[in-house]
Protein backbone atom coordinates (compact mmCIF):
# COMPACT_ATOMS: atom_id res chain seq x y z
CA UNK A 1 0.00 0.00 0.00
CA UNK A 2 2.81 2.36 1.00
CA UNK A 3 4.64 1.44 -2.20
CA UNK A 4 1.61 2.26 -4.34
CA UNK A 5 1.11 5.60 -2.59
CA UNK A 6 4.79 6.44 -2.90
CA UNK A 7 4.73 5.56 -6.62
CA UNK A 8 1.67 7.77 -7.14
CA UNK A 9 3.09 10.67 -5.14
CA UNK A 10 6.55 10.60 -6.73
CA UNK A 11 5.11 10.96 -10.23
CA UNK A 12 2.70 13.66 -9.03
CA UNK A 13 5.46 15.70 -7.40
CA UNK A 14 7.75 15.33 -10.42
CA UNK A 15 4.93 16.51 -12.70
CA UNK A 16 4.22 19.55 -10.47
CA UNK A 17 7.79 20.80 -10.16
CA UNK A 18 10.40 19.20 -12.38
CA UNK A 19 8.13 18.62 -15.40
CA UNK A 20 5.78 21.54 -14.90
CA UNK A 21 3.17 21.81 -17.66
CA UNK A 22 3.73 25.51 -18.31
CA UNK A 23 7.34 26.20 -17.31
CA UNK A 24 8.90 23.07 -18.80
CA UNK A 25 6.58 22.33 -21.73
CA UNK A 26 4.46 25.46 -22.35
CA UNK A 27 1.30 23.30 -22.28
CA UNK A 28 -1.91 25.21 -21.53
CA UNK A 29 -0.03 28.50 -21.90
CA UNK A 30 -2.52 30.00 -24.35
CA UNK A 31 -5.43 29.46 -21.92
CA UNK A 32 -3.35 30.73 -18.99
CA UNK A 33 -2.46 33.92 -20.91
CA UNK A 34 -6.14 34.52 -21.69
CA UNK A 35 -7.14 34.28 -18.00
CA UNK A 36 -4.08 35.97 -16.55
CA UNK A 37 -5.87 39.02 -15.16
CA UNK A 38 -8.17 37.20 -12.74
CA UNK A 39 -6.58 35.14 -9.94
CA UNK A 40 -9.89 33.60 -8.82
CA UNK A 41 -10.71 32.43 -12.33
CA UNK A 42 -7.24 30.98 -12.76
CA UNK A 43 -7.46 28.85 -9.63
CA UNK A 44 -10.93 27.61 -10.65
CA UNK A 45 -9.75 26.88 -14.17
CA UNK A 46 -6.70 25.07 -12.81
CA UNK A 47 -8.85 22.98 -10.46
CA UNK A 48 -11.20 22.04 -13.30
CA UNK A 49 -8.25 21.10 -15.51
CA UNK A 50 -6.80 18.92 -12.74
CA UNK A 51 -10.08 17.08 -12.19
CA UNK A 52 -10.62 16.64 -15.95
CA UNK A 53 -7.17 15.27 -16.68
CA UNK A 54 -7.08 12.93 -13.66
CA UNK A 55 -10.43 11.32 -14.44
CA UNK A 56 -9.72 11.09 -18.19
CA UNK A 57 -6.32 9.48 -17.53
CA UNK A 58 -8.03 6.32 -16.23
CA UNK A 59 -9.90 5.86 -19.50
CA UNK A 60 -6.99 6.77 -21.73
CA UNK A 61 -4.82 4.28 -19.84
CA UNK A 62 -7.33 1.55 -20.60
CA UNK A 63 -7.68 2.43 -24.29
CA UNK A 64 -3.89 2.73 -24.71
CA UNK A 65 -3.46 -1.06 -24.44
CA UNK A 66 -4.83 -1.96 -27.88
CA UNK A 67 -2.83 0.93 -29.38
CA UNK A 68 0.55 -0.11 -28.01
CA UNK A 69 1.49 -2.43 -30.85
CA UNK A 70 -0.49 -0.61 -33.51
CA UNK A 71 1.63 0.71 -36.37
CA UNK A 72 -0.06 4.13 -36.67
CA UNK A 73 -0.57 4.61 -32.92
CA UNK A 74 0.85 8.16 -33.13
CA UNK A 75 -1.89 9.09 -35.62
CA UNK A 76 -4.85 7.43 -33.87
CA UNK A 77 -4.03 8.12 -30.24
CA UNK A 78 -5.15 11.81 -30.22
CA UNK A 79 -8.50 10.94 -31.84
CA UNK A 80 -9.24 8.18 -29.34
CA UNK A 81 -8.12 10.37 -26.45
CA UNK A 82 -10.38 13.20 -27.66
CA UNK A 83 -13.30 10.73 -27.69
CA UNK A 84 -12.46 9.83 -24.07
CA UNK A 85 -12.29 13.53 -23.19
CA UNK A 86 -15.73 14.11 -24.79
CA UNK A 87 -17.22 11.23 -22.81
CA UNK A 88 -15.68 12.35 -19.51
CA UNK A 89 -16.78 15.94 -20.18
CA UNK A 90 -20.42 14.93 -20.49
CA UNK A 91 -20.21 12.72 -17.38
CA UNK A 92 -18.64 15.53 -15.28
CA UNK A 93 -21.14 18.02 -16.68
CA UNK A 94 -24.09 15.79 -15.72
CA UNK A 95 -22.67 15.09 -12.25
CA UNK A 96 -22.06 18.80 -11.60
CA UNK A 97 -25.58 19.54 -12.78
CA UNK A 98 -27.08 17.03 -10.34
CA UNK A 99 -25.48 18.58 -7.24
CA UNK A 100 -28.27 20.46 -5.46
CA UNK A 101 -26.62 21.49 -2.18
CA UNK A 102 -26.91 25.30 -2.24
CA UNK A 103 -23.37 26.48 -1.28
CA UNK A 104 -21.71 24.20 -3.84
CA UNK A 105 -24.41 24.59 -6.49
CA UNK A 106 -23.89 28.36 -6.52
CA UNK A 107 -20.15 27.95 -7.07
CA UNK A 108 -20.74 25.32 -9.72
CA UNK A 109 -23.01 27.73 -11.60
CA UNK A 110 -20.00 30.01 -11.99
CA UNK A 111 -17.61 27.18 -12.82
CA UNK A 112 -19.65 25.23 -15.40
CA UNK A 113 -19.26 27.73 -18.28
CA UNK A 114 -15.47 27.17 -18.10
CA UNK A 115 -15.57 23.36 -17.99
CA UNK A 116 -15.33 22.83 -21.76
CA UNK A 117 -12.27 25.09 -21.99
CA UNK A 118 -10.69 23.31 -19.02
CA UNK A 119 -11.29 19.91 -20.60
CA UNK A 120 -10.32 20.66 -24.22
CA UNK A 121 -7.02 22.18 -23.30
CA UNK A 122 -3.48 21.47 -24.48
CA UNK A 123 -2.45 20.86 -20.84
CA UNK A 124 -4.95 17.96 -20.61
CA UNK A 125 -4.24 16.40 -24.01
CA UNK A 126 -0.50 16.93 -23.52
CA UNK A 127 -0.44 15.18 -20.14
CA UNK A 128 -2.49 12.27 -21.46
CA UNK A 129 -0.27 11.83 -24.54
CA UNK A 130 2.92 12.08 -22.46
CA UNK A 131 1.84 9.48 -19.90
CA UNK A 132 0.73 7.16 -22.71
CA UNK A 133 3.96 7.53 -24.70
CA UNK A 134 6.10 6.90 -21.57
CA UNK A 135 4.17 3.64 -20.93
CA UNK A 136 3.36 4.41 -17.30
CA UNK A 137 1.30 2.06 -15.14
CA UNK A 138 -2.21 3.13 -14.08
CA UNK A 139 -1.05 4.63 -10.77
CA UNK A 140 1.88 6.38 -12.44
CA UNK A 141 -0.43 7.74 -15.15
CA UNK A 142 -2.95 9.03 -12.63
CA UNK A 143 -0.18 10.49 -10.46
CA UNK A 144 1.49 12.15 -13.43
CA UNK A 145 -1.77 13.59 -14.76
CA UNK A 146 -2.87 14.81 -11.33
CA UNK A 147 0.56 16.40 -10.85
CA UNK A 148 0.37 17.91 -14.33
CA UNK A 149 -2.96 19.53 -13.51
CA UNK A 150 -1.75 20.78 -10.13
CA UNK A 151 1.48 22.00 -11.70
CA UNK A 152 -0.57 23.87 -14.29
CA UNK A 153 -2.61 25.47 -11.47
CA UNK A 154 0.50 26.41 -9.48
CA UNK A 155 2.12 27.84 -12.60
CA UNK A 156 -0.97 29.90 -13.48
CA UNK A 157 -1.06 31.28 -9.91
CA UNK A 158 2.62 32.24 -10.20
CA UNK A 159 1.91 33.91 -13.56
CA UNK A 160 -1.11 35.77 -12.12
CA UNK A 161 1.02 36.94 -9.18
CA UNK A 162 3.61 38.17 -11.67
CA UNK A 163 0.93 39.98 -13.67
CA UNK A 164 -0.20 41.78 -10.53
CA UNK A 165 3.37 43.05 -10.02
CA UNK A 166 3.99 43.82 -13.70
CA UNK A 167 0.82 45.90 -14.03
CA UNK A 168 2.04 48.29 -11.31
CA UNK A 169 5.31 48.98 -13.08
CA UNK A 170 6.31 51.24 -15.95
CA UNK A 171 6.91 48.49 -18.49
CA UNK A 172 8.01 49.88 -21.90
CA UNK A 173 5.13 50.12 -24.41
CA UNK A 174 6.47 47.43 -26.75
CA UNK A 175 6.83 45.00 -23.85
CA UNK A 176 3.39 45.56 -22.32
CA UNK A 177 1.12 42.53 -22.28
CA UNK A 178 2.32 39.34 -23.94
CA UNK A 179 6.10 40.03 -24.26
CA UNK A 180 6.75 40.88 -20.62
CA UNK A 181 4.58 37.98 -19.43
CA UNK A 182 6.57 35.62 -21.65
CA UNK A 183 9.84 36.99 -20.28
CA UNK A 184 8.51 36.51 -16.75
CA UNK A 185 7.64 32.89 -17.54
CA UNK A 186 11.02 32.49 -19.27
CA UNK A 187 12.88 33.48 -16.13
CA UNK A 188 10.80 31.10 -14.00
CA UNK A 189 11.40 28.38 -16.57
CA UNK A 190 15.14 29.08 -16.18
CA UNK A 191 14.69 28.29 -12.50
CA UNK A 192 12.95 24.97 -13.22
CA UNK A 193 15.71 23.95 -15.60
CA UNK A 194 18.22 24.85 -12.93
CA UNK A 195 16.60 22.07 -10.98
CA UNK A 196 16.39 19.42 -13.66
CA UNK A 197 19.30 20.52 -15.85
CA UNK A 198 18.25 18.39 -18.79
CA UNK A 199 16.05 18.51 -21.81
CA UNK A 200 12.70 16.80 -21.14
CA UNK A 201 11.27 14.35 -23.62
CA UNK A 202 8.28 15.47 -25.64
Amino acid at each position, binding site marked *: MAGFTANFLVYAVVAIFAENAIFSRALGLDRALALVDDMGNMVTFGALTTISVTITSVFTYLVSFPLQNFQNAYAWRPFIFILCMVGVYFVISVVLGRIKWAPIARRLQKIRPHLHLAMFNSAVLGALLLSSSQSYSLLQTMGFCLGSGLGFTVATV*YVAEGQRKIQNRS*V*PRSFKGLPVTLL*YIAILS*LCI*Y*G*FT*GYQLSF
Partner: protein
Amino acid sequence: MNKSSPVYGRFSQSRDVLLAMVPLWVMAVLMYGPRPLLLCAVAVLSAWLFDAFCAKLRQEPFDFHDISSWVSAAIMTMFMPASAPYWMAVVGSFVAVVIAKNAFGGYGNNIFNPAAVSVAFLSLFWPTVLYRYPQPFTQVPLILGDDLVLTTSPLESLKVGGMPFLEKIELIVGNYAGPLCGVSVVVVLSSAVLLLVRKRISWQLPVSFLCAVSAVAYFFPRIHTTRLDSLFIEVFSGSIVFCALFLVGDPVTAPKKNISKLIYGALFGVVTMLFRYYGAYPMGACFAAIAVNAVAAFIDRKVTLAQGRYYQTRV
Protein backbone atom coordinates in the same frame (compact mmCIF):
# COMPACT_ATOMS: atom_id res chain seq x y z
CA MET B 1 26.59 64.65 -7.65
CA ASN B 2 23.67 66.97 -6.96
CA LYS B 3 21.54 65.61 -4.09
CA SER B 4 18.38 67.05 -5.58
CA SER B 5 18.82 65.01 -8.78
CA PRO B 6 16.13 62.30 -9.29
CA VAL B 7 18.82 59.60 -9.69
CA TYR B 8 20.70 60.61 -6.52
CA GLY B 9 18.96 57.91 -4.47
CA ARG B 10 20.01 55.06 -6.74
CA PHE B 11 23.45 56.64 -7.26
CA SER B 12 24.20 56.69 -3.52
CA GLN B 13 22.78 53.18 -3.01
CA SER B 14 24.88 51.81 -5.90
CA ARG B 15 27.98 53.72 -4.75
CA ASP B 16 27.78 52.24 -1.25
CA VAL B 17 27.25 48.69 -2.55
CA LEU B 18 30.21 49.07 -4.92
CA LEU B 19 32.37 50.47 -2.11
CA ALA B 20 31.38 47.48 0.02
CA MET B 21 32.62 45.19 -2.75
CA VAL B 22 36.06 46.86 -2.96
CA PRO B 23 37.66 44.56 -0.32
CA LEU B 24 36.34 41.55 -2.28
CA TRP B 25 37.91 42.82 -5.50
CA VAL B 26 41.21 43.49 -3.71
CA MET B 27 41.20 39.87 -2.48
CA ALA B 28 40.29 38.61 -5.97
CA VAL B 29 43.24 40.51 -7.49
CA LEU B 30 45.58 39.17 -4.78
CA MET B 31 44.42 35.61 -5.51
CA TYR B 32 44.22 35.65 -9.31
CA GLY B 33 46.03 38.71 -10.61
CA PRO B 34 44.49 41.65 -12.51
CA ARG B 35 42.21 39.50 -14.72
CA PRO B 36 39.16 39.62 -12.39
CA LEU B 37 39.32 43.40 -12.42
CA LEU B 38 39.44 43.52 -16.22
CA LEU B 39 36.54 41.04 -16.38
CA CYS B 40 34.54 43.29 -14.06
CA ALA B 41 35.46 46.37 -16.13
CA VAL B 42 34.21 44.67 -19.32
CA ALA B 43 30.97 43.63 -17.58
CA VAL B 44 30.41 47.08 -16.07
CA LEU B 45 31.09 48.96 -19.30
CA SER B 46 28.84 46.71 -21.36
CA ALA B 47 26.08 46.93 -18.72
CA TRP B 48 26.31 50.74 -18.74
CA LEU B 49 26.15 50.84 -22.55
CA PHE B 50 23.17 48.45 -22.64
CA ASP B 51 21.41 50.64 -20.04
CA ALA B 52 22.04 53.76 -22.15
CA PHE B 53 20.84 51.92 -25.28
CA CYS B 54 17.61 50.85 -23.54
CA ALA B 55 17.02 54.44 -22.38
CA LYS B 56 17.44 55.59 -26.00
CA LEU B 57 14.93 52.97 -27.18
CA ARG B 58 12.47 54.22 -24.55
CA GLN B 59 13.18 57.76 -25.85
CA GLU B 60 14.18 58.89 -22.38
CA PRO B 61 17.32 60.81 -21.44
CA PHE B 62 19.96 58.62 -19.81
CA ASP B 63 21.71 60.13 -16.80
CA PHE B 64 25.30 58.88 -16.77
CA HIS B 65 25.23 59.07 -12.96
CA ASP B 66 22.83 56.12 -13.01
CA ILE B 67 25.36 53.45 -12.02
CA SER B 68 22.79 50.88 -10.83
CA SER B 69 23.77 48.63 -13.75
CA TRP B 70 27.35 48.60 -12.41
CA VAL B 71 26.12 46.83 -9.26
CA SER B 72 24.36 44.05 -11.22
CA ALA B 73 27.43 43.62 -13.45
CA ALA B 74 29.82 43.53 -10.48
CA ILE B 75 27.71 41.00 -8.55
CA MET B 76 27.33 38.85 -11.68
CA THR B 77 31.11 38.87 -12.25
CA MET B 78 31.65 37.84 -8.64
CA PHE B 79 29.85 34.55 -9.36
CA MET B 80 32.16 33.78 -12.28
CA PRO B 81 35.56 32.10 -12.15
CA ALA B 82 38.63 34.27 -12.73
CA SER B 83 39.13 32.32 -15.96
CA ALA B 84 35.71 33.26 -17.41
CA PRO B 85 35.94 34.56 -20.99
CA TYR B 86 35.20 38.26 -21.57
CA TRP B 87 32.35 37.54 -23.98
CA MET B 88 30.56 35.74 -21.15
CA ALA B 89 30.64 38.95 -19.11
CA VAL B 90 29.09 40.84 -22.07
CA VAL B 91 26.35 38.22 -22.59
CA GLY B 92 25.64 38.19 -18.84
CA SER B 93 25.39 41.99 -18.79
CA PHE B 94 22.93 41.89 -21.69
CA VAL B 95 20.69 39.40 -19.91
CA ALA B 96 20.90 41.29 -16.61
CA VAL B 97 20.35 44.81 -17.93
CA VAL B 98 18.13 44.37 -20.99
CA ILE B 99 16.02 41.32 -20.11
CA ALA B 100 15.88 41.18 -16.31
CA LYS B 101 15.86 44.94 -15.66
CA ASN B 102 14.80 47.20 -18.55
CA ALA B 103 12.16 44.89 -20.05
CA PHE B 104 10.30 45.09 -16.72
CA GLY B 105 10.52 48.88 -16.49
CA GLY B 106 14.05 49.72 -15.39
CA TYR B 107 15.56 50.34 -11.97
CA GLY B 108 13.18 49.76 -9.08
CA ASN B 109 10.68 47.92 -11.30
CA ASN B 110 12.59 44.68 -11.81
CA ILE B 111 10.91 41.67 -10.21
CA PHE B 112 13.97 39.42 -10.31
CA ASN B 113 17.51 40.25 -9.24
CA PRO B 114 19.30 40.95 -12.56
CA ALA B 115 22.62 39.43 -11.45
CA ALA B 116 20.86 36.20 -10.34
CA VAL B 117 19.02 35.91 -13.67
CA SER B 118 22.19 36.42 -15.68
CA VAL B 119 24.19 33.87 -13.64
CA ALA B 120 21.33 31.34 -13.93
CA PHE B 121 21.24 31.95 -17.70
CA LEU B 122 25.01 31.48 -18.03
CA SER B 123 24.84 28.32 -15.86
CA LEU B 124 22.41 26.71 -18.26
CA PHE B 125 24.24 27.79 -21.36
CA TRP B 126 27.88 27.21 -20.42
CA PRO B 127 28.06 25.15 -17.21
CA THR B 128 31.47 23.69 -18.06
CA VAL B 129 32.93 27.19 -18.37
CA LEU B 130 31.17 28.70 -15.35
CA TYR B 131 31.86 25.85 -12.89
CA ARG B 132 35.55 25.25 -13.59
CA TYR B 133 37.91 27.36 -11.52
CA PRO B 134 41.63 28.10 -11.45
CA GLN B 135 43.56 27.29 -8.30
CA PRO B 136 43.81 30.21 -5.84
CA PHE B 137 46.99 32.27 -5.81
CA THR B 138 47.76 31.50 -9.47
CA GLN B 139 48.25 34.38 -11.88
CA VAL B 140 45.47 33.93 -14.43
CA PRO B 141 46.72 35.46 -17.71
CA LEU B 142 44.71 38.30 -19.27
CA ILE B 143 44.46 36.32 -22.53
CA LEU B 144 43.76 32.70 -21.66
CA GLY B 145 45.90 29.92 -23.02
CA ASP B 146 45.44 26.13 -22.98
CA ASP B 147 47.89 25.61 -20.13
CA LEU B 148 45.66 26.95 -17.37
CA VAL B 149 44.63 24.16 -15.00
CA LEU B 150 40.97 24.34 -14.03
CA THR B 151 39.27 22.27 -11.34
CA THR B 152 35.88 21.96 -9.72
CA SER B 153 34.90 23.64 -6.48
CA PRO B 154 34.20 21.93 -3.11
CA LEU B 155 30.47 22.29 -3.90
CA GLU B 156 30.89 19.81 -6.74
CA SER B 157 32.33 17.25 -4.29
CA LEU B 158 29.43 17.88 -1.91
CA LYS B 159 27.00 17.35 -4.79
CA VAL B 160 28.21 13.81 -5.36
CA GLY B 161 28.13 13.07 -1.63
CA GLY B 162 31.89 13.41 -1.04
CA MET B 163 33.81 15.46 1.47
CA PRO B 164 36.03 18.24 0.09
CA PHE B 165 39.70 17.65 0.96
CA LEU B 166 40.11 20.99 2.70
CA GLU B 167 41.04 22.11 6.17
CA LYS B 168 38.51 24.30 7.96
CA ILE B 169 40.97 27.20 7.96
CA GLU B 170 41.25 26.97 4.18
CA LEU B 171 37.49 27.28 3.87
CA ILE B 172 37.48 30.34 6.13
CA VAL B 173 40.27 32.15 4.26
CA GLY B 174 38.89 31.13 0.83
CA ASN B 175 41.95 29.11 -0.17
CA TYR B 176 40.10 26.81 -2.58
CA ALA B 177 39.14 26.81 -6.23
CA GLY B 178 35.88 28.67 -6.43
CA PRO B 179 34.07 31.73 -7.78
CA LEU B 180 35.51 35.21 -7.20
CA CYS B 181 33.08 35.75 -4.31
CA GLY B 182 34.38 32.64 -2.50
CA VAL B 183 37.08 34.68 -0.80
CA SER B 184 37.88 34.98 2.88
CA VAL B 185 34.75 35.17 5.02
CA VAL B 186 36.39 37.89 7.12
CA VAL B 187 36.63 40.08 4.00
CA VAL B 188 32.98 39.44 3.11
CA LEU B 189 31.93 40.28 6.66
CA SER B 190 33.76 43.61 6.38
CA SER B 191 31.47 44.39 3.43
CA ALA B 192 28.54 43.45 5.66
CA VAL B 193 29.65 45.98 8.28
CA LEU B 194 29.79 48.78 5.71
CA LEU B 195 26.38 47.92 4.24
CA LEU B 196 24.71 47.67 7.64
CA VAL B 197 26.30 50.85 9.00
CA ARG B 198 25.19 52.80 5.90
CA LYS B 199 21.74 51.13 6.21
CA ARG B 200 21.86 49.85 2.65
CA ILE B 201 20.53 46.42 3.64
CA SER B 202 18.23 45.31 6.45
CA TRP B 203 19.85 42.94 8.98
CA GLN B 204 16.74 40.70 8.94
CA LEU B 205 17.48 39.45 5.43
CA PRO B 206 21.04 38.07 5.72
CA VAL B 207 20.52 36.88 9.30
CA SER B 208 17.36 34.89 8.52
CA PHE B 209 18.97 33.51 5.35
CA LEU B 210 22.11 32.35 7.18
CA CYS B 211 20.04 30.87 10.01
CA ALA B 212 17.89 28.89 7.55
CA VAL B 213 20.93 27.62 5.62
CA SER B 214 22.63 26.63 8.88
CA ALA B 215 19.49 24.89 10.16
CA VAL B 216 19.09 22.83 6.97
CA ALA B 217 22.81 21.96 6.89
CA TYR B 218 22.73 21.00 10.61
CA PHE B 219 19.51 18.98 10.71
CA PHE B 220 19.68 17.50 7.20
CA PRO B 221 23.35 17.02 6.32
CA ARG B 222 24.04 15.59 2.90
CA ILE B 223 27.51 14.28 3.74
CA HIS B 224 28.61 11.63 6.24
CA THR B 225 30.11 13.80 8.92
CA THR B 226 29.14 15.48 12.16
CA ARG B 227 26.31 17.99 12.01
CA LEU B 228 28.61 20.84 13.02
CA ASP B 229 31.07 19.95 10.27
CA SER B 230 28.23 19.82 7.76
CA LEU B 231 27.06 23.26 8.88
CA PHE B 232 30.58 24.64 8.63
CA ILE B 233 31.28 23.21 5.19
CA GLU B 234 27.92 24.24 3.68
CA VAL B 235 28.09 27.80 4.97
CA PHE B 236 31.75 28.49 4.20
CA SER B 237 32.22 26.67 0.88
CA GLY B 238 30.93 28.60 -2.08
CA SER B 239 29.13 31.90 -2.05
CA ILE B 240 26.60 31.62 0.77
CA VAL B 241 27.85 34.56 2.82
CA PHE B 242 28.27 36.74 -0.29
CA CYS B 243 24.73 35.80 -1.41
CA ALA B 244 23.37 36.67 2.04
CA LEU B 245 24.54 40.26 1.62
CA PHE B 246 24.31 41.03 -2.07
CA LEU B 247 21.53 38.77 -3.40
CA VAL B 248 19.21 38.32 -0.44
CA GLY B 249 19.80 41.88 0.75
CA ASP B 250 18.87 43.53 -2.57
CA PRO B 251 16.37 46.21 -1.46
CA VAL B 252 14.50 46.30 -4.81
CA THR B 253 13.50 42.63 -4.91
CA ALA B 254 13.17 42.00 -1.15
CA PRO B 255 9.88 42.60 0.71
CA LYS B 256 9.36 45.87 2.57
CA LYS B 257 8.01 44.83 5.99
CA ASN B 258 10.35 43.54 8.73
CA ILE B 259 8.42 40.32 9.42
CA SER B 260 8.18 39.67 5.67
CA LYS B 261 11.95 40.08 5.44
CA LEU B 262 12.48 37.39 8.08
CA ILE B 263 10.12 34.99 6.29
CA TYR B 264 11.62 35.83 2.89
CA GLY B 265 15.21 35.35 4.10
CA ALA B 266 14.37 32.01 5.71
CA LEU B 267 12.53 30.83 2.59
CA PHE B 268 15.47 31.94 0.46
CA GLY B 269 17.81 29.87 2.64
CA VAL B 270 15.66 26.74 2.48
CA VAL B 271 15.18 26.98 -1.31
CA THR B 272 18.93 27.60 -1.81
CA MET B 273 19.72 24.42 0.10
CA LEU B 274 17.06 22.51 -1.89
CA PHE B 275 18.71 23.61 -5.11
CA ARG B 276 22.14 22.73 -3.70
CA TYR B 277 21.00 19.28 -2.58
CA TYR B 278 18.74 18.29 -5.46
CA GLY B 279 19.40 20.74 -8.29
CA ALA B 280 21.50 20.10 -11.35
CA TYR B 281 24.18 22.71 -10.62
CA PRO B 282 26.51 23.20 -7.64
CA MET B 283 25.48 26.84 -7.05
CA GLY B 284 21.85 27.03 -5.98
CA ALA B 285 21.52 30.60 -4.73
CA CYS B 286 20.90 32.27 -8.11
CA PHE B 287 18.12 29.85 -9.03
CA ALA B 288 16.66 30.16 -5.53
CA ALA B 289 16.73 33.97 -5.96
CA ILE B 290 14.49 33.67 -9.02
CA ALA B 291 12.03 31.33 -7.29
CA VAL B 292 11.80 33.44 -4.14
CA ASN B 293 11.82 36.92 -5.77
CA ALA B 294 8.56 35.91 -7.47
CA VAL B 295 6.80 35.55 -4.10
CA ALA B 296 8.27 38.56 -2.24
CA ALA B 297 5.23 40.77 -2.84
CA PHE B 298 2.89 37.87 -1.97
CA ILE B 299 4.65 37.50 1.42
CA ASP B 300 4.32 41.25 2.04
CA ARG B 301 0.61 41.15 1.19
CA LYS B 302 -0.15 38.22 3.48
CA VAL B 303 1.83 39.70 6.37
CA THR B 304 0.00 43.03 5.98
CA LEU B 305 -3.33 41.16 5.96
CA ALA B 306 -2.38 39.10 9.03
CA GLN B 307 -1.19 42.20 10.88
CA GLY B 308 -4.40 44.03 10.00
CA ARG B 309 -6.54 41.19 11.36
CA TYR B 310 -4.39 40.94 14.51
CA TYR B 311 -4.75 44.67 15.25
CA GLN B 312 -8.49 44.48 14.58
CA THR B 313 -8.96 41.66 17.10
CA ARG B 314 -6.92 43.56 19.68
CA VAL B 315 -9.12 46.61 19.24
